[in-house]
């Protein structure tokens, strides 16, 4: 039976060591989840950190796996922007995290890792994030005239909002609510 390569545990350890020695002020927080490290970075240091991880002769995180976004509408800043890079040399995967506001911008990585270009376009398309310095920030999956960014949690995906007792505030404005519904601002209607 073939020996199985030792995968770094938890994933991301080599990247963290590289960042700690090369850019000690870049990492804002580090958390571990399911044997994977998530390194939260200052948005201003993202480019430097990725360049360091890519060019470091030991770490060599040269392969952009993907980037995406997680929307937490109740939270401020609202978006978690997640980058996953892989190093074949160290057989390691690292997850980087940058937080962004609803209308905030994130620096683009497409200049460093061309594979990120399409992923960032997808993120712009589906979440409405702007990537500063991106060479071609257009919609990629949806038609150019599409309105809104569907993967935001508050996007209404189809049809009209239907009012139930649990979502009245969301579905109907106070002016639209019939007087027998809570929160209505209509005057009481004379019933025949």
């Amino acid at each position, binding site marked *: 039976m073939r020996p199985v390569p030792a995968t770094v545990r938890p994933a991301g350890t080599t990247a963290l060591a590289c960042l700690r020695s090369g850019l000690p002020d870049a990492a804002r927080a580090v958390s571990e989840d399911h044997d*994977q490290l998530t390194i939260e970075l200052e948005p201003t240091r993202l480019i430097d950190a990725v360049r360091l991880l890519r060019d470091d002769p030991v770490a060599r995180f*040269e392969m952009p796996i*993907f980037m995406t976004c997680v929307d937490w509408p109740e939270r401020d800043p609202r978006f978690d922007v997640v980058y996953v890079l892989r190093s074949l*040399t160290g057989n390691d*995967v690292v997850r980087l995290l940058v937080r962004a506001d609803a209308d905030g911008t994130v620096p683009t990585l497409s200049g460093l890792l061309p594979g990120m270009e399409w992923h960032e376009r997808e993120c712009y398309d589906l979440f409405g994030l702007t990537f500063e310095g991106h060479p071609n920030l257009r919609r990629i999956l949806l038609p150019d005239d599409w309105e809104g960014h569907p993967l935001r949690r508050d996007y209404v995906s189809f049809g009209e909002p239907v009012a139930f007792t649990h979502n009245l505030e969301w579905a109907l404005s106070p002016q639209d609510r019939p007087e027998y519904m809570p929160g209505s601002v209509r005057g009481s209607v004379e019933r025949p």
Partner: protein
Amino acid sequence: MSGAVLPPPPGTGMPTGAIPRQEGVPRIRPGGRGEFLEKIEPSEELMELNMGPQHPSTHGVLRLVLSLDGERVRACVPDIGYLHTGFEKSFESHTYQQCIPLTDRMDYLAPPMNNLGFALTAEKLLGIEIPPRGQYIRVIVAELSRIASHLIWLGTHALDLGATTVFMYCWRERDRILDILEWISGVRMMTSFIRVGGLMADVPAEFEAMVRDFLRDFLLKVDEYEGLLTSNPIWRDRTIGLGVIDAASALAFGCSGATLRGSGVPYDVRRAAPYGGYEQFEFDVPVGVNGDVYDRYLCRVREMRESCRIVQQAIDGLPAGPVNSTDRRVVPPPREEIDTSMESLILHFKLWTEGFRPPPGSCYHAIESPRGELGFFMVSDGGNRPYRCKVRAPSFSNLSALSRMVEGSLVADAVAIVGSIDIVLGDVDR
């Protein structure tokens, strides 16, 4: 012809099974197409040509905007999204188990692979593992679907370049794999056979004989395809030296699968980060040298042979026992128990109506699909639906490198290059 080839990563134990070259066969035939290509003079006038969205060689709905200088492609801009279905949005409103049929429809040439990726990621979030028999059956089904997917790729790729016979042969063998899938799951393509927590059901008694019957002569069939193509001078003329991408660029574009291995990088998720029992099987990772259409072809054809090896080992060592996890949070109690225990009945009902709730957290898990690294990034907020589930589709990243490969080639060769990266538009657009 090819760029810098990275040294094999030290210490990872990855093989460097470079494809042996046949002695005495020149890579470019004297007086052939390769020599003719060098003689075309560049001009100033460019023409825009739309290739697709309805073009037979794009294998789906892909539009390529080509800037042509005579017959030569100066720039290529892929336009995708025609098959965008919003699966990632749909995941957020379905319970984990309900998401499985959705994943079938992304990479529709290897649906069990998508099931496997989703199931493994959800199981990682839940912290459960399934019994060995379930793992072995998953490996067999996944590798069979890899062979089926490669057969479609080979058939259509050869058809694009004018070799119609291969297409018929490939369809013939793929049908036998679909027969096996139908026998175990009831469905030929969208099987939803691999579920979170195990399998739809244990395999029927005939399964083993069917798989052995398939394995008995499949390698001979691969010899048959290779006999039609590998040394065929027309095939070699139309594939060697085309669509070259060097290892460093392929890595920078995030390519994976045979598109990356054709350039000489021995990266295979099954080897780099083994999952679901793959560490127990012996197989080689075929690697190309030049990163052209021909090397990607050789890699995939050899991968079919390696998949056969894995299936053979798995069917020989198929253990007895249960196929599903015994974790009652995820897998409902067996039927007999429901007749005698009220709690089991309630649990069964709740599992099928509400589903299960993984603890809050996030994880990324990747598997090696026929096209490369298929990953799922799943975030749970403690509810019964994925809060966010991002699919890292291998075809998406591979396709983004297409412009780099196509620039400078002829229009007719663009067809060969698109075929060689083996995209599935359902996977690209999701």
